């Protein structure tokens, strides 16, 4: 395990600060496209502050799992974020297995969240947990396959290595394997972040919820941590998508100029991706729950094709 303390601290701060505004941006743009005047993009910060200040109401039927879940979720999301190169081509932390560790961290968080949904034994939490697990059972392998496609070309599962290898003259996005893998990853992004057509983050109808159903019993500080973790996870997945498939402008040297430029490119890529998510969310209705596996299977198949075509076209 490698760890660069300064870079780790810097990236952790970046993750914590940038994640809410990305959620805010998506919300505001969605509102604009729906002819509404949305909340300011800073709203998620205010919400987090509000939740942090509030008292918690916790069901007396809960066990320690309920209280541990927000911290596990928050820490796994943060740790996963440290494995992904964001501004610099070199991620501040690398664990054994690289990208496998990242997928594992996310799975750990999800596992605890699903338990946290079940723990208070409320009517909706269990429903959310069961749906979440069904969906992730297909989304997770699709994501692994898509990343392996890129890892095979780079000859490493270390994300920094992948990014460094795909930089330079050899990089072409229109490579069929990359295009397919990107599409698969984008669908996984929609599923993992609970977006339409898989889940509706803006609904109040408990019976239709997936991600939100698991959070219904949380309040106050715990809710703030979970919400924050969810937006960090979204940022991590989006930067994975942005930097693996478009490794442009990542700082290779450790100069302030390179870092400034890297940050600029990073934010620009995120904004484009957020725009894509907003477009998908506005132009689609939610799928019937039993159709969601079809969509995710499509992602899985695309990722498989991507993997096969790496061997065919090289």
């Amino acid at each position, binding site marked *: 395990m490698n760890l660069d303390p300064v870079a780790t601290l810097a990236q952790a701060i970046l993750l914590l600060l940038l994640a809410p505004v990305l959620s805010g941006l998506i919300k505001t743009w969605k509102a604009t496209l729906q002819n509404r005047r949305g909340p300011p993009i800073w709203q998620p910060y205010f919400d987090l502050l509000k939740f942090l200040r509030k008292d918690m109401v916790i069901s007396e039927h809960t066990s320690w799992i309920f209280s541990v879940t927000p911290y596990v979720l928050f820490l796994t999301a943060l740790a996963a974020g440290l494995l992904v190169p964001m501004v610099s081509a070199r991620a501040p932390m690398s664990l054994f297995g690289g990208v496998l560790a990242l997928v594992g961290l996310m799975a750990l968080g999800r596992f605890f969240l699903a338990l946290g949904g079940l723990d208070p034994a409320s*009517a909706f939490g269990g429903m959310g947990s069961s749906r979440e697990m069904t969906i992730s059972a297909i989304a997770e392998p699709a994501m692994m396959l898509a990343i392996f496609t890129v890892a095979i070309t780079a000859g490493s599962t270390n994300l920094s290595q992948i990014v460094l290898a795909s930089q330079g003259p050899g990089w072409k996005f229109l490579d069929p394997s990359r295009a397919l893998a990107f599409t698969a990853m984008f669908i996984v992004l929609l599923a993992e972040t609970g977006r339409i057509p898989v889940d509706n983050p803006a609904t109040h109808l408990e019976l239709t919820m997936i991600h939100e159903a698991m959070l219904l019993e949380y309040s106050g500080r715990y809710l703030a941590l979970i919400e924050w973790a969810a937006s960090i996870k979204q940022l991590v997945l989006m930067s994975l998508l942005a930097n693996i498939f478009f490794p442009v402008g990542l700082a290779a040297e450790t100069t302030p100029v390179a870092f400034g430029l890297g940050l600029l490119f990073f934010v620009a890529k995120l904004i484009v991706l957020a725009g894509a998510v907003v477009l998908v969310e506005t132009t689609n*209705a*939610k799928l*019937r*729950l039993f159709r969601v596996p079809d969509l995710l299977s499509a992602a899985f198949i695309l990722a498989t094709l991507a993997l096969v075509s790496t061997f065919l076209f090289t």
Partner: protein
Amino acid sequence: MNLLPDLRIVLDELTERFGARIEHAHAPQPNELYLHTKLELVGALCSAFYKKYQGRLAGVFAEDARAERDVFFVYYLYALDAAHGFVFVRVPVPSDNPELPSLTNAIHAVNWQEREIQDLFGIKLLGHPNPRRCVLHDDWPEVYPLRKDFDLHTKLPPFTGARHRFREVEGEGVFQVPVGPVHAGIIEPGHFLFSVAGEPVLYLQLRMFYVHKGIEKLFESLPIPHCVRLAESISGDSSFAHATAFCHAIERVAEVEAPPRARALRTLCLELERLYNHVADIGAICTDVAFVTAHMHAMRLKEAVLRVNELLTGNRLLRGMPCLGGVRFDFEDDQMRAAAKLVDDFEKEFKDLVELIRSHSGTRDRLETTGVLKPEVTRNLGIVGIAGRASGFDHDLRRDFPHAFYDQVRFSVPIFTEGDVQRRMVVRREELFQSLGIIRQVLEKLPAGPIQTKIEEVPSDRVALGYVEGWRGEIFHWIHTAPGNRLARCKVKDPSLQNWPALSEAILGNIIPDFPVVNKSFNLSYSGTDR
């Protein structure tokens, strides 16, 4: 007796068949026939109306007449859509041991209504398949609020009765999901208990009546002119329809008719009410499948209608407009122009919205084949209004029993047989286009003249039925007048009471996450159910 020819035939045939067992027949209005008979004849008459005259049991209610006659009266209201007439069968129930044979085993449509009689009057049901408490929950003490000897201002002790026991559904992997009575949206209370195996719903139990307000009792305590305002508040989204149905009943008792201009304005307002509710429902159905863009456009259109409502009547929900003998306000020329402009703008924009929804395959996929209510079930449960018309039940009071100005305008009644969420949305869509046509015709043909017929004191001990096809379905107000310009009884029948059980049928075989959109496609009123 001045009676419609078709009803005259019905009466003659029934008199021939039952002879003196039909003790008395009278018809205060040509389309409203009363048959006074004995309890034994209830079943035979019911089967005659269903089998021979294509009638349907549109309502059952009771009245406390112990002071005058020492009996309770139970009324069965049959709507003979083809004959364009209403027939009431009145039977006495002795006051010392009040018992009523139940019709629910034959006509499922009256399940809740019969139980209401049992709860509110203490008339015991005989042979009812599920004679448990309904309108007054299980924890209520033994009181019968609609009996005359129950004082309106009675303070009941804290409720200590038994809790309601839901039916249990057993099996491996079967879970109960309780939802409500307090919900996430700003809606009224209602409890839904789902029994599910995974996502598919095996059984849904509804429990309504959390907000019993005693409105029917209140009617008996107010002078008649004040009752109009009370009728307005029975169900917020049908304010105008309910108040108009009430005024209609009073006018029939007083044997006056609202002047033509007033009837035209009533029709205009009824259609405006339909307009804003239907467009809001179409939007709400879209938002329940997360197609929010269409919802936002629908809300914009609804707002346009509400603003014109305010401009025309001073109230966004048309409150304060209805009054006995006509309407409260006449419209000036510029108000008429605003209404005409609304129709034109609305039609253009609504067509765009329809196209947006129609071309959206994702929404269509969610709505088609979801929440199917089969035509047989619909007839059996007596489902009325839009939900009935989406499942092949072809009736509409505007066409079959023209009230207000509906005999002067041309329109068609859209009927579908598939009975899914999509068709319930399409019925609304088609009715909206018809409504726009009706408003145009009304504005064109608007008669000149007064907008009110003065009604002084209403004669006592008369009965009459007021009826209006509200946007959700048929609304009935049946009244019995008392001396001193008051009411002895006012029975309010909102379509929601009739339609709630349809939800339990429509959801069978669907999955839980589709429930909200199925529920929204019916969009029933909690308040109208539990007056």
